[in-house]
């Protein structure tokens, strides 16, 4: 029953999710997000810590005059070590009307995925709720996890948004 629902969901969303994706790595895992949500990619800079924020929110930075919160996805997804190397990058995302930066281990490339390349994700327990995974795509030996980044970033558990606004 659950399986059937999932397939239906993907069938409905398949059209929406196909397109160009930006892939990035978190530890050994590869993720992909809709490229239209990406504003820019920049190096990791010093952030200003915010008191009382969850551990995965590193703080805020000044992005040409606007204050942008930075989320460390490695901490959130418990993937890879949260160390900062010269390759550590911040992907600045435009989700809804908001600008958010996410820290990832590295950006790999931009791929075009056809609907048939995308498989529904099975139900499984992970640090990321499956509702934020649009599907899985396999390119040769690699498995890409397609993230619904907009949904993830506006989720309550990300603590990026005031609850009153939701």
């Amino acid at each position: 029953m659950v399986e059937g629902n999932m397939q239906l969901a993907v069938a409905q969303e398949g059209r929406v999710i196909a397109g160009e994706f930006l892939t990035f790595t978190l530890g050994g895992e590869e993720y992909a997000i809709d490229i239209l949500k990406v504003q820019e990619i920049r190096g990791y800079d010093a952030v200003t810590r915010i008191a009382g924020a969850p551990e995965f929110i590193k703080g805020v930075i000044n992005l040409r005059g606007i204050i942008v919160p930075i989320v460390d996805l490695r901490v959130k997804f418990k993937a890879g070590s949260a160390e900062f190397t010269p390759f550590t990058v911040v992907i600045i995302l435009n989700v809804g009307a908001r600008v958010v930066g996410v820290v990832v281990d590295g950006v790999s490339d931009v791929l075009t995925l056809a609907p048939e390349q995308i498989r529904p994700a099975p139900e499984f327990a992970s640090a990321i709720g499956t509702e934020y995974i649009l599907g899985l795509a396999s390119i040769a030996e690699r498995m890409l996890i397609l993230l619904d980044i907009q949904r993830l970033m506006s989720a309550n558990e990300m603590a990026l948004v005031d609850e009153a606004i939701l």
Partner: protein
Amino acid sequence: MSFDMSQFHEVFFEESREHLESMEALLLGVDVLHPVSEDLHAIFRAAHSIKGSSSTFGFTDLAELTHVMETLLDLVRNNAIALTEEMVDACLAAGDVLRNLIDAHQGHGDPDHTAADAIRVRLAGLADNAPRAGGAELTAHGDSRRARVYQLGFAVSAGDARAEQGVENLLGELRELGDVLEARAPQDGEREWRVKLASDVDPETLRSVLDFVADSASVTIEQLSGAAASQVSSVESYGFFDAAPGAPASEESAYGFFDPLPDAAVPAASEPADEAYGFFEPITPPAAPENGSAADGSYGFFEPMPERPVSELLTAAQTAVRVEPEAAALATLATSNPAATREPAARQSGKGDSGSIRVNIERVDQMINLVGELVITQAMISQAAGALDPVLFERLHNGIALLERNTRDLQESVMSIRMLPISTVFNRFPRVVRDLSSKLGKKVELVTSGEHTELDKGLVELISDPLTHLIRNSLDHGIESPERRREAGKSEGGRINLRAYHQSGNIVIEVADDGGGLNRNRILAKARERGLPVSDNMADQDVWQLIFEPGFSTADQVTDVSGRGVGMDVVKRNISSLGGRIELDSMLGVGTRVTVRLPLTLAILDGMSVDIAGETYIIPLDYVVESLQPTPAMLKAVSGVERLLDVRGEYLPIIDLHEAFDTPGERRGFESGIMVILESDGTKAAAFVDSLIGQHQVVIKSLEANYRRVAGISGATIMGDGHVALILDPQQLVSMARRAGHPAD
């Protein structure tokens, strides 16, 4: 008129709204029994302007309604009929209908044609049935303002229905200016209209009137007779740009404003009672009658006005100031005339049509943003240069100091563009109070003060809804019914005071009523009913805060005005989203006062930067009383924890900002750092920081735009080195200290 007019529609809508607004303000202010004729004229002009432009733009529904309104107002202003309360009501209602129509034309909502028809009938009925007053004066409308006779010719695009309407309006306009002696429609084969006009306006004015409707190229203006050609009446009036014919010298000479009138003057004014120069407003130039006993020399500058016949003028001579209040009041700029300058100038203020331009607010905002960036850059340069040797780089330092001052000046002047007087908000409340008090059967007087207090345009727009709500609340719940008031030994009429003023970088708006006040016990009972945690010994202040809880209402009955409990929480939320605070004082039986405090602007703040465990925070300077290094003797422990600071005998709670912001690293002893004494709403607290860094003017950036509200933080800013620093919210910190809590609680 063949080109596309739609590009001007926005301007038309905006202007019409302004006219409606000023008309409404005047209608509300007018004393029905003793209307000031200047006000009546202004009301008429507002209606007339809307009518004129709406028919030009082809909004016939607007034009039709304003036409009826104008007819009524014209009768009133000419003293043909007496102003009644009913007319004021009808005109106000018509204003509402017009607003609805304008909205509909702009694509918001549907036009309410039934209402428009109804109000039109109502206005027309008033105009027809009203008792005629001062019939003699009506005849005054007429003869003597034709210093010159013009032959006008102009053409309009043929066969255009709108053009025909335009011509009709134009003729109406010309009748305003003078007497149309002859108006000949285009004959076969030609397109030209021929109009013979007797008027004392200058040709330029005529041309501008004609150009508005006719094809500019076709306009011809021929002056058939000059200023002296006034054979029509015994009274002469003087055109403004033209030299007046020599008149018998009088004791008091008057001078025209741009051009001296040769030998000028009030002819044979042996007893000049008063002279006045109208500048922008049309005034009556009654000049001097031949018998020489008069009086009131006025020069119409831009628009002539009907004159009164000699018979009436004799009366006018005795009571010149009363009869011609508009002329007297306008006589402000004629400095060469001491008689004129001694007249009160007050009424002129606020009406001065000084040079202003309409600028899209986005452009202004863009400018403000750029200046904000400039301030940051300037701070960055200052900081970088601070490391350089002040002797070797003296000139650089001087230049930077200059740059700093100029940047600040620039910033201030740019910010002031956005500043509007709060009267733009207050002006709507007399209407609200008037309508509501009659609906509720209460007598309420609204007293406003501090209307000239300026605040940011953005705030003006956002504050108006919460304020309206507060006023409605005061009216509905605050002020009691006349019977109840009488029983309580108060005057029957309630009073709402609306006050605005500046206080230490904030704008404070108070809404105070002398009504029944909040009932503490009822609020507590209601709160218990709703399961809120309350106790009988709560401080009054805390009890009042309960009414800001969502869904909280103690109203006995739900009226359509208020009482559904939707409201105060929304008001509070709106105001805090503007960075403001709301406070409430109340005394049972005496009244309630709601105080709203708002930051002056949304963008700039004077702040003190402090270091807390290596992190930089900004404390708004307005809240800082003093800073001091505590000695062990000043620190007082309560139950083993140092929680109080003894400042000259005053015990202040200590807010350890390290704890509040959960900074990494070891805690330091209080003696090793600095205590910053903060004061908010009369409550003081000592904030513990490691060291003070300096004072800056910072540009406030929203943290909530991309993130969310953080306890104890009101926003963020960008420091000279490009880093983000968080701005503390002292008010919140102080109230947290009172509860001895942790910001995360």
